[in-house]
C-alpha cells in the first residue's frame, strides 16, 4: 500500500507542481467544478435533486480530466526517458500499475464527488425553503456510476499507454476506444426487433437508480477486464524491449 501511495504522490506532484501544465490542470479542474457545482445545478434548479438523469448525465464528466493523466502514465514516462529508471527500482509491478491507475481515478472521482457536494451546497444557498439533498439511493448510485466510469477509462487509458510509444499515440488509441463506447448504445438498432423490444421493456421497468446500478455493474465487469489486461501487459522486459 505504501508503494502505491508513493506512486500516487509522484503522479499528483508531477501533475500539479509543474509550472505551465500545473496551472492548466488546476484551471481545468476549476472549470469542471464550476460547471458541475454551480452552473448546471443553477440551470436545473430544484429538479437537480429529483431528476436523476441530470445527475447521472454529468457524473461521468470528470472522466475527461483523467484522460491526459492515464495516457501519459507509461507512454509519457517512456517519452521522457524516466520509465527505465522507475522500473529499475525496488517497486513491485502491482504498486507501479495500481499507483498510476488509482492516482487518476481518485483525482477524477474526487472532482466528481466534490462537484456533486458543491452543487448541493450551491442550490441550498440559492433556493429558499431547504435543506435539499439527493435521495440517498440516487446519490449512492451516482457515486458508484461515476467511480466505475472513471476507473474503466483509467484502466483502458493505462492499457493504451503501456504499449504506446508516445503519450499522443496513447491518447489517439484511447479516443478510438471511447468512440466505440459512444456508438455502443446505437448498436441496439442493429439487433432484431423482438430483442430490441425486450431490452426496452427491461429498461422501462427499472427506475433511474436501478438503471444506474445496472450500468455500474456492467462497467465494473469492464473494469475487472481492463485491470486484468493491464496486469497481463505489464512486464518489465516487454516494456523496455517493445
Amino acid at each position: 500500500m505504501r508503494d502505491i501511495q508513493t506512486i500516487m504522490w509522484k503522479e499528483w506532484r508531477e501533475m500539479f507542481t509543474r509550472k505551465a501544465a500545473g496551472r492548466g490542470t488546476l484551471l481545468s479542474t476549476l472549470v469542471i467544478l464550476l460547471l458541475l457545482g454551480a452552473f448546471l445545478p443553477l440551470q436545473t434548479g430544484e429538479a437537480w435533486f429529483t431528476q436523476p438523469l441530470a445527475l447521472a448525465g454529468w457524473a461521468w464528466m470528470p472522466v475527461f480530466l483523467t484522460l491526459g493523466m492515464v495516457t501519459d502514465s507509461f507512454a509519457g514516462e517512456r517519452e521522457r526517458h524516466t520509465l527505465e529508471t522507475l522500473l529499475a527500482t525496488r517497486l513491485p509491478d502491482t504498486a507501479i500499475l495500481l499507483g498510476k491507475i488509482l492516482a487518476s481515478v481518485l483525482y477524477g472521482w474526487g472532482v466528481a464527488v466534490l462537484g456533486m457536494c458543491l452543487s448541493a451546497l450551491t442550490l441550498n444557498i440559492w433556493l429558499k425553503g431547504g435543506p435539499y439533498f439527493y435521495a440517498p439511493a440516487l446519490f449512492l448510485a451516482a457515486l458508484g456510476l461515476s467511480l466505475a466510469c472513471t476507473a474503466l477509462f483509467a484502466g483502458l487509458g493505462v492499457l493504451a499507454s503501456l504499449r504506446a510509444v508516445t503519450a499522443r499515440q496513447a491518447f489517439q488509441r484511447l479516443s478510438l476506444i471511447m468512440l466505440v463506447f459512444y456508438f455502443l448504445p446505437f448498436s441496439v438498432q442493429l439487433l432484431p426487433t423482438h430483442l430490441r423490444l425486450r431490452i426496452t421493456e427491461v429498461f422501462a421497468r427499472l427506475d433511474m437508480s436501478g438503471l444506474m446500478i445496472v450500468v455500474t455493474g456492467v462497467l465494473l465487469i469492464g473494469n475487472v477486464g481492463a485491470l486484468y489486461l493491464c496486469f497481463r501487459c505489464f512486464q518489465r522486459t516487454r516494456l523496455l524491449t517493445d
Partner: protein
Amino acid sequence: MSDYAIRTVHLTRTFNNHIHAVDDLNLEVPAGVVFGFLGPNGAGKTTTLRLLLGLLQPTAGTAIVLGHDVRTQADAIRARCGALLEHTGLYERLSAEDNLELFGRINRLPGDERRTRIRQLLTDLELWKRRHEPVATWSRGMKQKLAIARALLHRPALLLLDEPTAGLDAVSAAALREDLARLAYQEGITIFLTTHNLSEAEKLCQQVAVIRAGRLLAVGSPQELRRFRGGQVHLVVHGLTPGVLDGLRTTFGREAVESGPEDGHILLHLASPSPQSVASVVTWLVHQGVSVEEVYHEQASLEEVFLSLVQEGEHDA
C-alpha cells in the same frame, strides 16, 4: 556474503533469435571495487546492465548479483542496487528535492533519515542551493550529478552506472569523476560502470573488462591489461651491424625485433616484457660486441590495448 558483487555464468541475451547482444559472458566483479566495463557502441554494455538489474531475462546462463539470482530474485537485486542508466531518468518537471524525495520514499527511507540524506548528498555535490528549481532548467552536468545522488540515496551495496559522463564537457566530466570517486570511497560500495571513455576507466577503475559484440575479450586491472598486451622496450645501442640485427631477429623472433628509424636504436615488441627477457636481449647484444647505452620501457596505453583487443575481436569475428 560472496566475495563477488557480480558473477555472471555463461550469461547470454539474444534478440529476435539471432542478435547476440550478450554472448556467453563469464565475469566476476569483486566486492568493493570500481569496475569498468569497456566496449564500443553496440557492444552489449547496456544490455548487460539491464540483465544485471533483472530488467531483461537472460536467454541462457545467469548472473548472481549481491548473492541474488537475476532470474528469480530481481526484486531483491533492485532493492540493493542504485542505477544510473542510459538516461538520467529524472522527473524534469519536479524539483531536485522532489526527485530525491520520491526515490527516498520508493526506497522506504524514514522521513528524518530521508531529509538528512538528501541534504547531505545535495550539499556534497554542491546542488543544495538550487534544490527547489525544476530539474528541467538545470545543465546536463548538474542533472548527471543529481542522478548519481539519486542512485546513492538509499546507500546501495552496488552502483550500476551506464556511461555516467557521456555528453558532458571535459570540465564537467572531470568534476563528476572526482565526485564519483570520492562518494564511492566514502560509501564503500562496489561500482560497475560502463564506458567507452578509456581515460575515465583508467582514472576510476581498479578492474576493467573489455567487451565486443557481446563477448568478453579481456579482464583485469588496467595495469594487467597493459602488461598483457606487452608494450615496447627501446634500446639505444652503439656498434649495431646488419649482421647482429639479423642474428637478434633469428634468436628472439622476427616480429619481436624492429630496428629503429635511426641507427643505434632497437625497438623490441615483447609479449611479456619482464626484466629477465629484456636482460637476456641485453646480454646477447653485449656478447656480440654491441654496447647498450640506454634501455627504457614504453608501456601500451589502455587505449592502445582496447583498440588492439577490439580490432582482434573484429578480425576473429
